[in-house]
């Protein structure tokens, strides 16, 4: 067997490496193109080959973008994402605690209904939420985004955290009971701290989604002052429709925060993204 194995596995190893490299190129070349083009001058992109390095490093696109309203978009993105994530964590952990550990009528039914919320497409709610935001006067403010972001994050978050809390040993709860802890103490002192990894997962998974969310932000805001980063790309496209380096500079700048976060918290972020996989 040892004699035949190297012979049979060598071509397959080459194949594995080849496939990995090809896929790597497919994944990364668009990023290379994006960054490369963003530091070229506008005339260079028509006169030089696509993959050629820029003749001179032209950062004027970046300067133009950074001197424009970029930081306003960034500020709104951070505000909306932070508030929405904090609310999502609070509401979903409370609900998960009830579903996982409290006995009440309709527990099973309500849980199924909440999880069924996973299949509701945001588009079905778009028109009514748009009308609602106008009616209550939050239209065209960053606040308009928080409600829908939290609501659409809840089903998956409650699902993940309920699974998580069900695994916390009963003994801990009973011990706390004997010490006279009520449900509020039990939730705040035992379940929330023990769920920290689950909460981080939920925060990362939803955070990426909220950071990149397009359609609600597009419909519920109109003034660039009130819009989030994905809309920065959209608005710049309208403004600089023929200035490709400038547009790709915006794309690079909007993608940068997540890539930096990814470099630092890679394992965590991959775990967080995997959380979405427990759906369905």
């Amino acid at each position, binding site marked *: 067997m040892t004699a035949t194995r190297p012979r049979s596995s060598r071509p397959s190893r080459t194949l594995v490496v080849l496939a990995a490299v090809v896929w790597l190129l497919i994944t990364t070349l*668009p990023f290379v193109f994006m960054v490369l083009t963003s530091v070229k001058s506008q005339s260079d992109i028509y006169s030089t080959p*696509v993959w050629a390095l820029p003749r001179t490093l032209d950062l004027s696109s970046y300067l133009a973008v950074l001197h424009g309203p970029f930081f306003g978009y960034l500020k709104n993105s951070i505000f909306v994402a932070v508030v929405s994530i904090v609310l999502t964590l609070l509401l979903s952990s409370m609900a998960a605690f009830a579903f996982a550990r409290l006995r009440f009528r309709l527990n099973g039914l309500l849980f199924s209904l909440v999880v069924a919320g996973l299949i509701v497409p945001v588009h079905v709610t778009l028109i009514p939420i748009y009308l609602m935001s106008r009616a209550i006067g939050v239209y065209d403010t960053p606040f308009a985004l928080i409600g829908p972001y939290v609501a659409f994050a*809840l089903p998956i978050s409650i699902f993940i955290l309920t699974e998580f809390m069900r695994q916390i040993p009963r003994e801990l709860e009973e011990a706390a009971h004997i010490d006279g802890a009520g449900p509020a103490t039990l939730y705040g002192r035992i379940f929330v701290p023990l769920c920290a990894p689950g909460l981080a997962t939920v925060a990362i998974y939803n955070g990426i989604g909220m950071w990149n969310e397009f359609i609600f932000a597009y419909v519920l805001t109109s003034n660039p002052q009130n819009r989030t980063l994905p809309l920065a790309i959209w608005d710049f496209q309208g403004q600089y429709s023929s200035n490709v380096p400038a547009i790709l500079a915006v794309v690079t700048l909007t993608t940068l925060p997540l890539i930096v976060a990814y470099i630092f918290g890679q394992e965590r972020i991959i775990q967080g993204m995997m959380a979405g996989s427990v759906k369905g």
Partner: protein
Amino acid sequence: MSLITPAKPVRVPSRTRQVRSQNWVAAAFLLPALLTLVVFLVYPLLSSFRLSLLNWNGLGNTARFVGLQNWADLLHDRVFLTAIRNNGVLAGLSILVQIPLGLVLAFLLDRAGRASRALKVLYFLPLLMSSVAIGTVFRSIYDPNFGPLNSVLRALHLDVLAQDWLGDPRLSLIAVIAVVCWQNVPFYMLLFLAGLSSMPAELREAATLDGATEPVIFWRITLPFLQGTIRSAMVLSLIGSLRYFDLVYVMTGGGPSNSSEVMATYMYRTVFSSFNIGYGAAISSAMFIIVAVVAGLTLRATRRFETEV
């Protein structure tokens, strides 16, 4: 421990009281989440169905009740039928391309072991990017004048293949779907890697000892083991494909001449460009019904499949 606890008999009556009172405790813990869901999810869902019975441009009280007229029109609307067909093509290709590709790549990455760790970081980059960003980058890549795709094709002397990818009605849908795959394959890869990581090593080892080759291990052991994961991948990609919006909207807006139209882009334009709220609500409600029915059917079908195997 419990044998000598004197508190035990005392706890019996207190526990029944506890069960009764937990209804209120539970209500307090659930209320904030349920209220949010009702306001931003359940009410809008129902409201959408109500709006679909109106003829309304969204301004003031010009709304007129037209009953099921919008729904009747929808059945004869060529653009809507094209959109459904395109969603179907998207769903079909997602299942035929993304899931197998994600599965194979995850299998390779899992086999490649530690060396692949650094690469893994790069493989998942597309998952971090917003659809607007991806759509914008690929619009440049597809650009017929300076886009790298055509220049690569020309450099390979394949000039005939150089096309106006997004501007040609025969190509636009496929060009967009290719980007959808680029964006989503890493997700399925991740999903299957998660599945593979829970596979007991003994399974492989036993098979290798019995002389099974890699392909045999893949077909006979890995694939059956991942059945549950494949099932959720299918449900996810079907539901996802039916409500696809961002990339299509950013790259083509559904055009040229509706060639890449999907239900969500058609709904968006009907409401926010043509200001036909009632008809748009009918489209989005129809979308919900289709998604719910397909999700239900897939869950049932794959469950049956699972018990048969």
